[in-house]
């Protein structure tokens, strides 16, 4: 059995419809797992169930072989970092970090030792006597992290901890979190809606939608091989083409054109999807399979490249590229969807 085990968790706020619909999740010891999804998908609710703020209507939460479903928050010994940091404004950095140890009635010398250790690790040296109001966003974040880690929790929970930081600091902090997490080997559950953040930091990612986990896999697999249309859309796939299986790895689109797909599936009818970056522009005379032509509806300058929205016989197709040759609105373009880049969902 895995270290952390959520089985058939149902949560309902109004007793009529469920926010979580029989959610299952397994996390191995020492892993950092992200819950990724749009707002309202239930990721924060899942975290709050684990933390103990919400008691599920049904289901079981096991940690390290112990059933914690009904154990109250303050007896769970988890570290939690909030989106708003939730530092205690009337206490100094030292007292904020020492809070959990003081609650445990640890002796003074031991508290002093452990707090100074974690302050060192979290790069907060020299700030012990400051109050949270006199800290920068990144420093507050680190204090919140230190406060959660100093009690040596069984589980670290992070609730969108980076969303209040500016872009550069966010990248530094996520590297920092990953470094601390792997150094201390602490099992971590991380909630985010930012896919880049989540991919860069996680061992595994659970993409959530409508109260269930749609796909639970490594970041690489989720990025390159989404299993459902929702996951594909959420991580940046934009073109969805209805396909039906012909023979072998050949599929036909609704206008009869043939698409070869390397990673086929056994379904007869499915959707082929591809990222705008992976589509290549080919000469109009190219008549090989996996190509389609269309007229340019909109051209958008993205900085690195251009994005074209094409009207084709297979529906709208979004393509990135074309720096060598500029296409104008209304012009005809022919594009190729490489067989190894198409994913079937």
């Amino acid at each position, binding site marked *: 059995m895995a270290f952390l085990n959520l089985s058939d968790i149902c949560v309902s706020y109004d007793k009529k419809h469920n926010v979580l619909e029989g959610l299952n999740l397994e996390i191995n010891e020492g892993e950092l797992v992200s819950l990724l999804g749009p707002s309202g998908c239930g990721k924060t609710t899942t975290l709050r169930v684990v933390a103990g703020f919400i008691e599920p209507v049904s289901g079981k939460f096991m940690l390290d072989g112990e059933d914690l479903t009904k154990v109250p928050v303050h007896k769970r010994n*988890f570290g939690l970092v909030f989106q708003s940091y939730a530092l205690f404004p009337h206490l100094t950095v030292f007292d904020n970090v020492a809070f959990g140890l003081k609650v445990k009635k640890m002796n003074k010398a031991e508290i002093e030792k452990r707090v100074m250790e974690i302050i060192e690790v979290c790069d907060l040296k020299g700030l012990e006597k400051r109050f949270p109001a006199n800290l920068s966003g990144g420093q507050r974040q680190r204090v919140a992290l230190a406060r959660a880690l100093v009690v040596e929790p069984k589980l670290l929970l992070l609730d969108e901890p980076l969303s209040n930081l500016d872009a550069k600091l966010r990248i530094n902090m996520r590297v920092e979190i990953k470094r601390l997490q792997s150094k201390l080997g602490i099992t971590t559950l991380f909630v985010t809606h930012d896919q880049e953040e989540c991919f860069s930091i996680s061992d595994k990612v659970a993409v959530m939608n409508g109260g269930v986990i749609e796909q639970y896999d490594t970041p690489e697999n989720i990025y390159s091989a989404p299993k459902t249309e929702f996951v594909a859309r959420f991580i940046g796939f934009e073109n969805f083409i209805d396909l039906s299986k012909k023979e072998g790895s050949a599929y036909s689109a609704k206008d009869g054109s043939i698409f070869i797909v390397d990673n086929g599936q056994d379904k007869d009818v499915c959707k082929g999807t591809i990222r705008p970056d992976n589509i290549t522009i080919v000469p109009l005379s190219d008549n090989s399979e996996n190509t389609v032509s269309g007229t340019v509806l909109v051209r958008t300058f993205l900085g690195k490249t251009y994005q074209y929205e094409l009207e084709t016989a297979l529906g709208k197709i979004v393509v990135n590229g074309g720096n060598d040759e500029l296409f104008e609105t209304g012009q005809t373009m022919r594009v190729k969807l490489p067989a190894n880049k198409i994913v079937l969902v």
Partner: protein
Amino acid sequence: MRKNKVLGIYTFIVFAFLMIPLLIIVVTAFGEADIVQFPIKGFTLKWFSKAINSQSFVSSCLFSFKLAIGATLVALLVGVPAAYALARFTVWGKGLIKGFFLSPTIVPGTVLGFALFQVMIVKMHIPTAVGLFCGHFLIVLPYVIRIVGSSLEEFDFSMEEAAWTLGMGKIKTFFTIVLPNITSGISAAFLLAFINSFNNVPVSMFMTGPGVNTMPTTLMGYLESGFDPTVPAFSVLLMIATIGIMFVVEKTLGIAALSQ
């Protein structure tokens, strides 16, 4: 610049409008004549000594002080948890409950006083002092709920949750995390509630009786029978006491703490 000048004059006029009556009272307290007059003839301190030596003034003032402190403290004991519950939980009919708590500030004081008098004194024969205390508690409770409530609305309740996750129980968390962060609201509520009880006339008028008199009703009674400068003299003493309190508050908490 021109605009600033106009604003300056305007501010001065408003300020003068507020200050002149107070100045007149201060000045009349020193007049020698047996009636309050302005400008005064002569200069004396005898009205001050009369005010200080008046048994009814001093005892009613002390009584009002005790009453106001008592009513305010009980209102805090009741009002702070109520405000907390209203801010923390989604209570059914929250708006209605909030409106209900504020109703004593909407109902005219005279009506409230009369109603309390009818129920508590006439029907239930509750002792005057107890009735008076209940009346004052009722007047100040809405201030407490309102002011503490607004400072709780700015409180980030995830702090509370953070303390829970660090192993602290819910009740202890309220005292160690929530209370210290709403002290400015509580002290503002204390001051406003105290002042409202201490100065209250309409409810006290109905609820006082033989041997039980608050400071404002004693002053009213005195003014009805005569009009010598004892009342202005007494008012000057109260003003000095108030300024003293404000000075202490400013030095310890800062006046800004009260307006937060």
